């Protein structure tokens, strides 16, 4: 990451019309980062935001800033841009007390055109002479293609078990895809486990101690031991716009338009799989529909490049259909958690055990010596694909936020890492933090109850960090025990945003409705306060949807197989933004885990039932009632 690249275009360039062109390695994935980065550039250059033109990143002109992920675009991308702009002016960076543009709720620069229906997304791009492609895969994993069947009149591209079709019009491509798929025969691949927790526990490749601190004297003070086991299912990104890419080969050189989160990583992976040189590939970023992590963007880019190789130099637009996306996007992996803790006579936690079982949480391309993308394992000269891995702690992957943010004297956190992957998982918003925080913060409520304490003061008793205490105290006055209220707290990645969430639910038997979510959030100095609030609101609602409804079922094809929260079901949301001048950190992921636990805790407050298995559907709540 952040390799010094020889760039054809400087980071900052003054244009003849008085505007400034800015290159950045961070990409807009629907979070509005371009506006926030434009504010940072405008601030340092001392010009109005309207004078800033953010150039779309590509591998021949933009800095390599790694992957746009992990809520790091403001923290890292903003920092490097600030430095570049200050260097351009030849003056030191402004100090935050002099900011006039950073810290203001500048309206998003991109929204008017999007709302007007202007071409805004890669899906909307049309190139001269463009062909339409579709990839042909069954809606389940497979070992190999057995036979294609009759394909007369259809332009089929086949490379081993990789199959696609090309057509002059999009409708013809879709019809051709349907016909070929109906006739092709596939040898089925590994089946997804029905119950993930026992499967994961039976397939551990490595036990890794994430953290251990011993305090035997403290541990000996325990008068009560409490245990809890929790699970989370596979969760889909389920973006409204399925993944899309355009690829064109000309004179042995490949140009790819992609909504990837990492243009350089994708280029590296494409070179590896296509057995060509990175120097002969240009990856251009174009915005896609909302991106919540590693979705089908990179896979479809490789698929498009394979189809375009047989397109006689014409560009090929490959749109994954809804069923392609649901079947082949990399999901957020399933995981199991076992917690154990001891309370002393004063109701204080003296020891803490947290064990979790999961695949790795990143299967992103271009990071390992083996490829990760689907087609790499499907072409005739196939590659062995790498397993999912974890970024190192403290940010971590499946272990993200597994380290408790509380002060416990004796603790051990153990990562039971599973490499075998019958269903492919990768990075979904917050990675392991969603499940770990769900487990930790549900368990904290269980412990509070055992200690005869209320959830607010029990948490505060185990916290020293004033910023953590502040976000909890911000929502505390809203908390009313017995009103279907639950709270939860986490500091994202243990180094990012502080977030405390209050959930208010209504339970009618096993039917659970989340009526309201309130989040108190500290992201340091908010570059664009309304942008932060907007992301947090979205994070609250998406996390509520994961928590209440979502679990991937093998063979799912459409939205009826994967319901998400609808307009009549979404909770009211409120964001209490703490204002300070600490370093700015990202806001997009901090709500995910706290929401899940806050809702489960609110369910307990409403019904007296502890639901430890996500999602909190009527079926799972009924099981918890009958347990």
């Amino acid at each position, binding site marked *: 990451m952040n390799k010094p690249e020889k760039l054809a275009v400087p980071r900052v360039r003054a244009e003849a019309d008085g505007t400034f062109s800015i290159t950045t390695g961070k990409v807009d994935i629907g979070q509005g980062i371009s506006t926030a980065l434009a504010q940072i550039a405008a601030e340092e250059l001392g010009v109005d935001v309207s004078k800033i033109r953010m150039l779309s990143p590509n591998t021949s002109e933009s800095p390599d800033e790694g992957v746009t992920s992990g809520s790091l675009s403001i923290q890292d991308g903003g920092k490097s841009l600030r430095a570049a702009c200050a260097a351009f002016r030849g003056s030191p960076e402004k100090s935050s007390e002099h900011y006039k543009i950073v810290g203001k709720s500048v309206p998003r620069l991109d929204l008017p055109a999007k709302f007007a229906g*202007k071409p805004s997304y890669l899906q*909307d791009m049309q190139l001269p002479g463009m062909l339409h492609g579709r990839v042909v895969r069954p809606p389940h994993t497979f070992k190999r293609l057995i036979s294609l069947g009759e394909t007369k009149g259809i332009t089929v591209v086949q490379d081993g078990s990789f199959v696609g079709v090309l057509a002059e019009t999009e409708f013809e491509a879709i019809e051709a895809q349907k016909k070929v798929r109906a006739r092709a025969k596939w040898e089925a691949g590994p089946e997804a486990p029905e119950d993930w927790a026992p499967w994961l526990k039976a397939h551990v490749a490595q036990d890794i101690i994430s953290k251990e601190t011993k305090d035997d004297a403290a541990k000996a003070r325990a008068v009560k031991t409490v245990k809890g086991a929790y699970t989370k299912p596979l969760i889909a990104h389920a973006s409204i716009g399925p993944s899309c890419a355009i690829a064109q080969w000309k004179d042995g050189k490949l140009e790819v338009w992609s909504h990837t989160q990492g243009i350089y990583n994708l280029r590296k992976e494409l070179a590896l799989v296509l057995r060509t040189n990175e120097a002969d590939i240009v990856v251009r970023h174009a915005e896609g529909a909302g991106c919540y992590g590693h979705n089908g963007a990179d896979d479809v880019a490789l698929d498009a490049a394979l189809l375009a190789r047989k397109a006689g130099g014409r560009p090929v637009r490959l749109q994954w259909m809804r069923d392609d996306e649901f079947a082949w996007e990399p999901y957020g992996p399933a995981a199991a958690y076992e917690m154990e803790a001891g309370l002393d006579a004063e109701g204080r936690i003296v020891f803490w055990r947290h064990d979790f079982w999961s695949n790795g949480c990143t299967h992103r391309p271009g990071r390992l010596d083996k490829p990760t993308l689907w087609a790499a394992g499907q072409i005739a000269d196939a590659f062995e694909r790498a397993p999912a891995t974890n970024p190192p702690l403290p940010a971590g992957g499946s272990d993200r936020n597994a380290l408790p943010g509380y002060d416990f004297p004796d603790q051990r956190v153990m990562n039971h890492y599973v490499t075998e992957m019958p269903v492919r998982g990768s990075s979904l918003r917050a990675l392991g933090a969603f499940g770990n925080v769900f487990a930790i913060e549900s368990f904290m409520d269980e412990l509070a109850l055992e200690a005869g304490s209320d959830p607010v003061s029990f948490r505060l008793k185990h916290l020293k960090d004033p910023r953590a205490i502040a976000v909890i105290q911000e929502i505390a006055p809203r908390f009313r025990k017995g009103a279907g209220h639950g709270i939860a707290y986490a500091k994202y990645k243990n180094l990012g945003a502080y977030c405390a969430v209050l959930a208010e639910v209504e339970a009618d038997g096993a039917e659970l409705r989340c009526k309201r979510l309130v989040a108190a959030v500290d992201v340091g100095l908010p570059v664009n306060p309304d942008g932060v609030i907007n992301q947090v609101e979205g994070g609250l609602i998406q996390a509520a949807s994961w928590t209440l409804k979502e679990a991937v079922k093998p063979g799912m094809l459409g939205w009826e197989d994967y319901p998400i929260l609808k*307009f009549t079901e979404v909770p009211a949301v409120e964001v209490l933004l703490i204002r300070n001048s600490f370093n700015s950190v990202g806001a997009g992921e901090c709500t995910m885990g706290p929401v899940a636990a806050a809702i489960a805790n609110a369910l307990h407050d409403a019904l007296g039932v502890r639901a430890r298995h996500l999602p909190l559907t009527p079926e799972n709540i009924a099981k918890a009632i009958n347990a």
Partner: protein
Amino acid sequence: MKINVNGSPLESSAHPDTPLLYVLRNDFGLVGSRFGCGGGQCGACMVLVDGRPMASCDVLLSFIQDKKIITVEGLDGRVQRALVAEQAAQCGYCMSGIAVSASAFLQKNSSPTEDQIREALEKHLCRCGSHSRVIRAVQRVAREQA
């Protein structure tokens, strides 16, 4: 086939079984109707067919002969201005469809309750979670036209 889109007569040579969505996007450059599911399940490609919201991915070209189509590009802009005022989006991919449905709804009901707004938009999926801002935007239009 002759069709009428946003008040303009247009001629399409596409196969009559082609879903309207692809005709709008690829033949007429009206890409504001976004592709989401191809099966009428998400609302990203909503258009008005003789004033009634329909998913254009689920409407065949042959069906719309002699009917009047309004796409997001043909709206009067009031809903979109309110969406901007409320900054009602993260990615915005679903919003042109939502704008179409909201416009039609506000024609029928100029002072809706929050529950009525939610019901009216029930067919629209938004994955980024911008629902509460969308509801506020629809309320804003109702307020401004009162």
